[in-house]
Structure formats: C-alpha cells, structure tokens
C-alpha cells in the first residue's frame, strides 16, 4: 500500500513537472522574435501585413499571452501537439513517425553499453592490474573526453570509407529487395556505426562504475563467506556479487536519459539517421515553432517516464530500495 502511495505521489510530481516544462517552453517561444504567422508566410513565399494579421487572427496569435498559453496547454492535454506548417503534418504524427528509428538507435546503444560495460567492469575488477583493466581506464577517459560527433566521424572514416564495411548514412537502402529478413539485415548494417558511437559515451561511464562497485563488493564480508564455503570463484562473482554491483549502474543509467537525447541529436546528424534528433535539428533551423515545442515536451516526457521506470527497476533488483523510502 505504501508502495502504491509513493508511486502516486511521484506521478503527481511528474505531472506538475511536465506542466512547468510546457509553460516554460511556450513562454520562451513567445518571447522570441517572430511567430507562426511568419513561418506560414515564408512557406507561401511572403505575405503583406494584412495577410499576416489575418493569419494571426485565424490562429489566435492576436490573443493575450495567457489565453494562448491556456489554449496550448488545453490542446496538449488532449494529446494534440499542434500542426507543423513546415512539414504539413500534425506534430503528434510527425513525432510518432520518427520515434521508431530513434528508439531503435537509443535502446540498442544503451543495451550494448550496459552489457559490455558491466562485463568489462567485472572482468577488470577481478584483475585490477591486468591489461584489460588498464584498457577500461583508458577507454573511460576517451569516452569522457571525445566529442561524440567526432567519434562518429572517425568511425565513419575508418569503417565506411577506408574499409567499406558499413553504409555511410541513413537507415535503409531503397535498392534492397527481398523479404523481412533482407530488410532487417539492411537496417542492422546501417545501425552498427551510429549505435557504437552513441554507446561509446555510456560504455565509458558504465564500465568505470561497474569496475569500482564490483571491487568494493568483492571485498565485502559475504563474498568472503561465499568463497570460504567453497563456491567456485565464477559463481561467487556472477551469482552473488554481481547482483549487488548492478544497482549503482542501473541508477546511473537511469540518470542518463537527458544525455541520451542530447547524444542522439548529434549522432543522428552525423549519420543522417531519420529519427527525432534530426527532426529536432531541422525544425530548430527552420524555426518551426509547433514542432520544436512538441519535441521539447516529448523529450521531457521521456526523461520523466524514464526516471520513474528506473526507480521501479531498482526496486526489483534491490529490495532494500523500497523499504528505505
């Protein structure tokens, strides 16, 4: 019952937070010079002041700020994020169109980073002075310090131009024929480089943390007990110690949602990946206000939901978490 109460309080907090995001974004767009009427007139190839006034009246842009804000919040509550005059499509459908590509990229990168990060961290924790351990330290430093778009371009030069293993850009090759598997394979080939690029940032974080917590856990009493009662070292590490070393890594991963969105914008731009990141970039350059607002709102939603899910995942992995709060 307590759990349920805690969850509902979190949901209420989340809703208030989202509302605040909405208000801030809308106010910011309102303060900026230029408005939707300018965007529309641009796409018509210019319009005189009278036409601009007509457009403003039609879209309620001549109303006081609070009225406009109220209307916008009201529409968002009905899952209507407005209409993009730049793409001639509703913003909701625009976002939903681009979402699968971004989800594929982001999720695969996170999974690879988590799995590889934990494995590298555990192996190097077992041999703190081994070659692999130094490699992990070095790689963590690289992941921290290298700009992600540069990493992407380096991979592109190496594995796409010098050694043509993977395609240069995009997500699909239109010339590929065949059934489901041919297309899936084609997408997978396009996915490899952007996915590795995005994963590189997080792999560094996760492997370093996994190494540190694993070393701490391996020094604790219950691990010594497990060793003393004669368990195989491998079982001690992977069955007993790993469980406790995981929860800091999951916590850290849960804090990365905002960083993931930022990384996705850059990586998608480098590889022309047709996802939300490129959409965000294009709409910002084109000053397509409804789309920008929609994407900002949607990413905040993703971050908030992501944080709640992380919390739930932590409760599953570590029963102590629920009790403490």
């Amino acid at each position, binding site marked *: 019952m307590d759990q349920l109460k805690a969850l509902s309080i979190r949901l209420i907090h989340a809703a208030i937070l989202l509302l605040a*995001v909405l208000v801030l974004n809308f106010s910011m767009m309102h303060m900026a010079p230029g408005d939707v009427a300018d965007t529309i007139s641009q796409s018509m190839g210019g319009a005189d002041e009278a036409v601009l006034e007509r457009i403003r009246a039609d879209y309620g842009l001549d109303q006081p700020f609070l009225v406009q804000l109220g209307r916008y919040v009201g529409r968002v509550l009905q899952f209507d994020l407005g209409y993009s005059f730049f793409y001639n499509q509703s913003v909701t459908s625009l976002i939903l169109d681009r979402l699968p590509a971004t989800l594929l990229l982001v999720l695969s990168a996170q999974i690879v980073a988590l799995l590889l990060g934990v494995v590298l961290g555990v192996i190097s924790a077992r041999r703190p002075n081994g070659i692999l351990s130094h490699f992990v330290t070095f790689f963590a430093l690289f992941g921290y310090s290298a700009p992600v778009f540069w990493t992407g*371009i380096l991979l592109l030069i190496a594995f796409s131009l010098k050694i043509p293993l993977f395609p240069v850009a995009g997500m699909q090759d239109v010339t590929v024929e065949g059934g489901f598997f041919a297309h899936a394979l084609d997408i997978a080939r396009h996915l490899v480089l952007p996915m590795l690029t995005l994963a590189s940032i997080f792999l560094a974080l996760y492997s370093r943390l996994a190494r540190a917590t694993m070393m701490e856990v391996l020094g604790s009493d219950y691990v010594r007990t497990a060793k003393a009662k004669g368990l195989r070292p491998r079982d001690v590490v992977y069955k007993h110690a790993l469980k406790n070393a995981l929860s800091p890594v999951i916590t850290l991963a849960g804090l990365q949602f905002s960083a993931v969105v*930022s990384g996705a*914008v850059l990586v998608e*731009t480098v590889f022309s990946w047709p996802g939300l990141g490129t959409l965000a970039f294009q709409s910002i350059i084109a000053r397509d206000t409804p789309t920008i607002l929609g994407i900002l709102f949607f990413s905040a939603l993703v971050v908030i939901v992501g944080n709640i899910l992380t919390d739930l995942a932590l409760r599953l992995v570590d029963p102590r978490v629920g009790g403490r709060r």
Partner: protein
Amino acid sequence: MSDTPALPEIPVEKARSPLAEAWEMFRRNHAAVAALVVLVLIVLGAIFGPPLYGTDPFDMVWAPFSPPGADGFLLGTDYLGRDLLALILSGARVSLLIGLAAAFVSVFIGVTVGALAGFYRGFVEEALMRVTEFFQVLPTLLFSMVIVALFGASLPMITFAIGVVSWTAVARITRGEFLRIRELEYVTASRASGASNLKLMFRVILPNALPPIIVQSALMVGGAILFEAGLSFLGLTDPNVVSWGQIIGSNRTYILESPFTVTIPGLAIFITVLAISLVGDGLNDALNPKLRQR
C-alpha cells in the same frame, strides 16, 4: 669557563600552508601534472598563438584540401583553402573562453541555489530542489539549441545557453555540503556569537564547502567545451568567429577529400578536455584526500 653544553637540536617543523600541502598531493599524481603542463601550453597557444602566427583564419591562402605538411602549411588547408593551423589557434580562444565562462555561469547559479537550499532548509529547500529537478528533466542540448537559434547566436548568448542548463550537479553538491557543515560546532559557535545569515553562508560555511565544488567546476569546464563544440558543430554558433566544433561541422561533408580538417580539430577538443579531466582528478586527490577512491 666550561663551555655551555650544546643545546640538543630540535628539528623545526615548518608549518605548511594548506596550499603547499595541496600542491604536494597534486604533484604525486603524475598524470595530472603532465595534463597541467599540456593545459598551460594550450592556454598559451590560445593567447599568443594568433598574433604570433599572424595568418588571418578567414583568409583563403591556398588551394583547398592541402594535406598537413605539404605546400608549407603545417596542418594543411580546409575546404575553403584557409590555413587550418590559424583556424585551430583562433578556435582555441573561443572554445576555452566559452568553456570557462559557461562553467562560471553554471557554478554561480549552482552554488547560489545549493547554498540557499542547504542553509535555509524547509520551504526554500523544497522549492529550490523542485527547480533543480525541473532543469534536470530538460533535454540539455535541445534546450540550448532552441535558445541559441531563437535569441541569436552571439557568444554571450551561447555562454548563457550552456550555463543555464548545466548547473544542477553543482547545486546538488553544494546543498549536500551545506547540509553537512551547517550542523558542525564551529558554525553553531559563530551563529551564537551573532554572525548574520549572509556571513554564515558565505564566510563560514562556503569556504569549507569549496573542495568538492572546485573539483566539479574543473570538470564543468571540460563539459562546457564539449557542449559548445556540439552546438557549433550543428552550426549554432556566431558565424563571425571560429571555434573547434564549427571547423568540424563545416568540413564534415568533405571527409572524402581531406579527413584531416575533421580529425585535427577533434583531436584538439579531445586533448583539451582530457587534460582538464585529468587535472580535475589531481585536484580531487589534492583537495579531498579523504574521499580518494580507486
């Protein structure tokens, strides 16, 4: 007549300043010392490089895509035939300047918010931590892109756009330190002797809260440089100045013709940020000896 017996030699222990002690600890971290040397060289290059080298980074001096070393240009030329070395030296100024300024902005906001929240507790803390949470939820890069695109890509605006989204970590650290220190006896003592809240906050507590804040600030400079590089890579930068990210962004369509125009500026960013984070590591050893983790 007899000589007075020689006084026994008492070894004099010189009292050492905290700064000297910190330097002693810092010096033991060889990687940090090497990184500090590299960093000093980069800063010197940024300050004195452009006037000494002389070539205007916007001048088209040669045919485009000349590889490094050939034709008398140490780093070659870019897609417009501009001298890449001149671009790198000039870009160093912008990248370092924005990195420092944006880190300063975010440390200023973060320390203020964290200090107020940790000192006053109660309603103030609740409200400020909600604001912090709010800024943690914002997708940082997207938000800064929007600010720069809407309100103009001037250097102060870019600095503001980076600083305003990156202060949450500093606020959390500062608040944590304030919560810990405000309960200590010497704070109670100066409160009892009539110190005002402002004095307690900034003269009594803040100096003792500084070590972790300084380490975090050092790391933030690196983060801000990466952030600025990302923005200018996307073209969201002042077109009248050169920055490292912008060189990469404008040359990236020509990696077939000349990969160097992309790899070299990236290497400059990488080395600078790496040096800063190694120095930050050293500062951590020097200032938080108890918190050392390995």
